[in-house]
């Protein structure tokens, strides 16, 4: 029994790291631009599908990986200019609906290009699973966890150690004052979307070897990432990571111990519970300033 619990914890943490990555991208973009980008799951799906197609042309895995991230980052920037920038004075609700529209369009585009087939990517490192305490740990899980840790450290380094990061923070803290010292918030917003495109694509590619990659996998990913972000308080970067891991572990245990049909329903139940009981999230303080 304890083997099984450990096994479920491992798969829960793997799943959770994926949700954390999506939630991280969601929260960072939201903090910077005030736009909740619900098309983020599609960025991940298209990133994964692109990498798979590029790899299928005979490209080395690492090249396919990088090229796909660059392409999705460009796509993020183009979409920001085309759909978000013209509506930058609109209300938050309008902007959310725009991103929902983007998400549906991107899913449609993916369906046209890749069809309804299921694709997969080989694992990044060869070799079988490690056995720890009787439970198997897939090497790809370590890659995914590593990406989450790396992303978090890079984000921290950018915001705390670089001048550009400080300028982005300034634009978040006080938009008017930031404009008065010469920071252009619309440029900041553009780069935030480029960054979230790159991050979303990276997340999608990392999970491609362990999940079934289809044109519509972004939908559930996006929802899970959103739930993870809400658990963490929506504007709290640390909370987003914790929320993702928590959601992953809970899902894994409920699927393993109760019923696997419960897995997706659980996320929505948690979302409702958090919104009703603790809308500021587990780490959030009500009315706190962003970042």
């Amino acid at each position, binding site marked *: 029994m304890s083997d099984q619990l450990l096994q479920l914890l491992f798969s829960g943490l793997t799943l959770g790291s994926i949700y954390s990555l999506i939630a991280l991208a969601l929260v960072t973009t939201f903090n910077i631009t005030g736009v909740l980008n619900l098309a983020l799951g599609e960025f991940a799906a298209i990133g994964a599908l692109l990498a798979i197609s590029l790899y299928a042309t005979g490209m080395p895995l690492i090249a396919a990986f990088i090229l796909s991230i660059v392409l999705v980052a460009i796509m993020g920037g183009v979409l920001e200019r085309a759909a978000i920038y013209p509506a930058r004075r609109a209300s938050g609700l309008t902007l959310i609906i725009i991103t929902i529209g983007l998400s549906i369009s991107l899913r449609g585009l993916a369906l046209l290009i890749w069809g309804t087939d299921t694709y997969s990517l080989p694992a990044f490192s060869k070799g079988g699973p490690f056995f720890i305490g009787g439970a198997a740990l897939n090497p790809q899980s370590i890659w995914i966890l590593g990406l989450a840790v790396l992303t978090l450290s890079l984000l921290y380094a950018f915001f705390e150690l670089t001048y550009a990061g400080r300028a982005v923070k300034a634009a978040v803290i006080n938009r008017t004052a930031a404009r008065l010292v*010469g920071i252009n918030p619309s440029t900041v917003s553009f780069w935030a979307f480029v960054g979230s495109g790159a991050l979303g694509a990276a997340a999608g590619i990392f999970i491609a070897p362990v999940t079934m990659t289809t044109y519509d996998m972004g939908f559930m990913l996006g929802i899970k990432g959103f739930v993870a972000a809400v658990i963490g308080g929506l504007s709290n970067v640390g909370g987003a990571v914790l929320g993702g891991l928590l959601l992953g572990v809970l899902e894994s245990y409920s699927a393993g111990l109760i019923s696997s049909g419960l897995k997706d329903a659980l996320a929505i139940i948690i979302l409702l519970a958090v919104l009703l009981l603790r809308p500021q999230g587990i780490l959030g303080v009500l009315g706190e300033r962003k970042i």
Partner: protein
Amino acid sequence: MLRIEGLDVYHGYVQAVRGLSLHVKEGELLAILGANGAGKSTLLGTLAGLHKPAKGNILVKRKGDTPPNKEKGNTPVGGMSQVECPQLWKDITNTSPEKMVRQGISLVPERREIFSSLSVLDNLMLGAYHRYRRDKATILCDVREVMEIFPALKGREKEMAGTLSGGLQQMLAIGRALMAHPKLLLLDEPSVGLAPLVVREIMSILSQLKKTGVTIMLVEQNTRAALKVADRALVMERGSITISGSSAELMSDSKVQQAYLGRARVQPAWGQA
């Protein structure tokens, strides 16, 4: 160095500035006085690019060292009529705030608007954002220079700006604006909510700054303090200028005394009979 011609600015349907024309001279300290809602802050906000004027022009003098058609060289001897004068004034109406800073106009906004959850040092460094790439190496020297102007900020570089007292926050806000190396510094009510001693300190710093060649426009409700340091002052009422003149003239103007300096009109008939 700055010319405003027939400026109209609206907030929604409310007209805040009405047909205002004004000439600001290089190196002067101009005080703008008036009651709440007279349009003073809107005027400064428009100059900083925060509000778009409905009508009128804002012009700045071009940098003296680079007249645009210097290249033409051979001036015709034929007489004055053929001489093409270089465009001395540059129209900067409808420029966005992030570009106004690059034109040398820096606003210290009402309520200071510092980056409260960043450190004092970060606030000052970000003030130089528009020239950071060019002057990376000397930014810290500029920070030190600003610290010399505001010694009270020394030793607090690492503190969160939001934890500073009101007076220090105001100094930080002015310091941040100075980091942009402005030619024209706009100050929106720097004395509001501050202790009289701090107000005096800030005003004396402004007159020091003026000596370094910065042109200053100072919006104030504290009429007495503003007139003490200003070279010239004007009074705004309902969006236009009603009185203007040198500080000394305004100080002795009976209308200004009555309305803004709190002195009752002298009425010799009273109490004598």
